[in-house]
């Protein structure tokens, strides 16, 4: 091969690489790239480590967590703040304080992030969703298309999927899908039949086919909807999901890359796994403070490469699984 040909090929490879990473950087495709590169398919999570906060800033009732970029953001609810850690659990910084003003919280609950690295935090008591930049600086409130920030009554679970914001409202008994500009796209449920009725929904998750999984806490079940909001079925831990529910206060939900549904059952202190038929395939945890146990776990987040984060409220830690 001629030297010139080699240079051309090398230059082309370098140029394509630069173009690829430029596109990834400017179009915020980092998470998608990680997902494409990942070989992890899901299944029963294996405990990796705990995020516990440092001695000066212990977590107090961590209700939810999310991973944005390489940082883990945790709603440190009883401290009315958000704490930020690296994946090893090292404290990076925190933001927020008790209050009702901008950048302040009363009951920070659901937390999620967009592709620009902005952090969205739902405040159950302040009745607002606050948006912060990745450094914790308050940017603005999330507003609907009427430019109202208090358009919900009690926002709880919060997730961004496919550039759409999903939020549960406990008092309204609803789950909403919004565009990031505040346009309402979907409302679940429509109360169209006796099963299609939510009572204190605490969390929402979507799978790759955009099926919607709602943790219907007050009714002790998970309700599955199609992407258009049409009711599909209930998952309640019983045989064929037709018997009495086995759940007590279901909370965080998430879907692993292989489609396994994970759910935190707060008052049995377990995390359950379900296959795509809604059959329980494993459980992890159990009441206690030892390694692998939970005491009133609440939030659950699955990142794009299948890492699972579970907030363990009374044990004041975040369990990280891979």
């Amino acid at each position, binding site marked *: 091969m001629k030297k010139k040909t080699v240079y051309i090929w090398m230059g082309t490879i370098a140029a394509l690489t630069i173009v690829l990473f430029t596109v990834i950087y400017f179009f915020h495709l980092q998470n998608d790239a990680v997902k494409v590169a990942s070989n992890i398919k899901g299944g029963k999570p294996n405990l990796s480590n705990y995020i516990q906060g440092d001695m000066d800033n212990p977590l107090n009732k961590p209700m939810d967590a999310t991973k944005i970029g390489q940082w883990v953001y945790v709603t440190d609810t009883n401290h009315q703040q958000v704490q930020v850690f690296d994946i090893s659990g090292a404290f990076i910084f925190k933001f927020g304080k008790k209050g009702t003003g901008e950048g302040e919280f009363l009951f920070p609950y659901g937390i999620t992030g967009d592709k620009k690295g902005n952090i969205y935090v739902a405040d159950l008591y302040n009745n607002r969703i606050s948006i912060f930049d990745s450094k914790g600086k308050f940017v603005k409130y999330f507003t609907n298309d009427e430019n109202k920030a208090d358009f919900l009554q009690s926002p*709880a679970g919060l997730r961004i999927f496919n550039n759409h914001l999903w939020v549960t409202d*406990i008092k309204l008994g*609803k789950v909403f899908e919004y565009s990031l500009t505040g346009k309402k796209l979907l409302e679940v449920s429509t*109360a169209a039949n006796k*099963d299609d009725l939510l009572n204190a929904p605490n969390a929402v998750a979507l799978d790759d086919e955009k099926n919607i999984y709602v943790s219907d*806490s007050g*009714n*002790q079940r998970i309700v599955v909807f199609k992407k258009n909001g049409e009711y599909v079925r209930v998952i309640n831990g019983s045989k064929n999901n037709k018997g009495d529910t086995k759940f007590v206060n279901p909370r965080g939900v998430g879907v692993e890359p292989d489609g396994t549904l994970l759910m935190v059952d707060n*008052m049995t202190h377990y995390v359950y796994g379900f296959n795509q038929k809604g059959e329980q395939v494993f459980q992890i945890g159990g*009441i206690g403070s030892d390694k692998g146990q939970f005491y009133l776990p609440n939030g659950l987040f699955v990142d794009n490469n299948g890492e699972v984060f579970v907030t363990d409220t009374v044990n004041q830690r975040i369990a990280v699984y891979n």
Partner: protein
Amino acid sequence: MSKKKFGFSLFLALIIVGLLSTTAFARGTYWESVKANGTGGFTFGLKNTASVDQTFVVKVFPKDTTANTYTTELYTSPEKVVLAGVQDSIDIPASAGIQVGTIYKMVLYTVKDGVASDVGVKFGVLTSTSNPKMASIADDPDGLLDVDGSGLNNANNTVGKASTHPTHGAFQNNTNTCASCHQTHTAAEGNALLFKDGVYSTCSACHDGTTGAYNSFAPATTETVESIQGTFDVHGTNQNGSMHNADGAVQLSAAPGGNPNATADFDCASCHNAHGSGSAEENNLAVDPAGWGEVPYLESTGTRSTVTIYSGHAMKTFNYDNKTSPNGKLFINIPIYNSVAEATAAGTASKAAGNKPYPYVLVKQTAGTGNSFYSRAGITDENTLVIQTYRWSSSKYVADYSLWLRELSYPFTANTVLYSSDAPTYDNVAAGKPEASSLNLASNLKVVYKDGFAYGADVGNIKSANIALGIDVETDGNIEHLWDGTVPDSGIEMTKYCAACHIDYLSESRNDVSGTYTTAHRHANVSRDELTCVRCHYAHGTEASIMHDANDNSIFDLTASGGAFQGNNQGAIDYLKDPNPSSALKRYTGMSVCYACHGGGESFVGSPRNTEADTSTGEHLKGGMPGEARWDVTN
């Protein structure tokens, strides 16, 4: 036939069948959805699938619950023309007369040449006054939720199958719910089989606003400021908040005026019973606060400074280990008298001798007339024999309606038993089961445990009794009813409830040695509903944003249009912030807690300094009691 032709024919046949099927099942219109519109009415989505424009109306018929029919037309919507193939909707506004809890039959009609033809029927019911979007919609009435013929049950019952895990009692015989909160062998907190600090965490897992159940951490709202309990969500420095720190971090001994030897942790379960309570189910107040009903009363004599304990026991702790205490509420072989006069004579004589009168006794009497508790129990004959609890109050015995505790399972301690024999004794105080000598209650004696009395002919045969007194605070959600007589005796019971820990604050218990003497002011007679503790204090916690001023104005009144701090939230907070070192869980800021009651009195009426004006009328110097309507004292 070649394969190609055969395949093509089959394909063609499928298409034709599909087309014909579509045509066969196509309708001129259909309901797309029916839902509550969020403003007290319904919205009907529909689509005109006909090839021509059509006119639609919706008629609404409420259910006649007596005849179980839907014949009376309540509302007809304006006619609406929907273009062919177009989706549209028709609104039924709240102003049509839609009521929460009423089932409506809603019929869709097409109108052609003035003739209406029904094309579809739906049934719907709004299920919540607080959530106008909450509704149940079905094709027929049987498909609706929670309709028992009279209306709706609460939203928590919308899915009956969720009842496997009731939290506050009524567990099923195959329950597994205990394990949600208790550990059989590895619990950190002994008797209760709970995790260390498990009570607070377990309660707040649901009661933090995340389940739709009562939120004990609710921020200031117009509801919070009118509540009995206030909130645990208090702001310290900015609003001088104070609260009962119920997370298990302190012991009961921390209660001002309380027992210095009370070592139990103070948490939610110190006041509330997670497994259900007496009649006040909405507040789940424990019927045996601090466990006094398990502690045998220790009779004492002498003045406070020279008290003598008969039994010779030194009081260590007041519950759990069956130690006796002068504040115990388990009265073994309680004195029984045949009249109030006889009882009072005995108490007066005891007092004259320098002894403390027996705090509670039983009196046999006839029912008489005008007693609402007796009427409620079904006593209609005024000559009916009644045996009733009486308590010593300053100089006489007065009727007391504290409930009699029954503990019919292990450990059998706090139990009330009536005997037909003289001076029966427990075989074992700690296992005080009813004995064979106890009366056959089914024969001719009805025991009203809830209100602390029994009636029937067998009252005459009662010769001795062990009475375990509990507390049943009847509430109905309206705080005023604790002191205005609507729920008789409830204010007194509430006061005794607080005094279970704040022993020395209750005049009747301040002289026994189980409390810590304080110089705190006591209203002279706390044996009246009117002076119950919660008239001036919240039970959970307070802060400026839920406090009131003497005119009963909260931040919501002050910042409203025409209020003294219209639109000025911070100004109202500064005004309502208690200036004292502790806001002491007060309902009223500063010493307006006094002024709120006494401000309508004669000493303030003529004061030229008082320029307070009524916000609605502009009239000056309104008087009145907290929670009551104000009156114009200048009239």
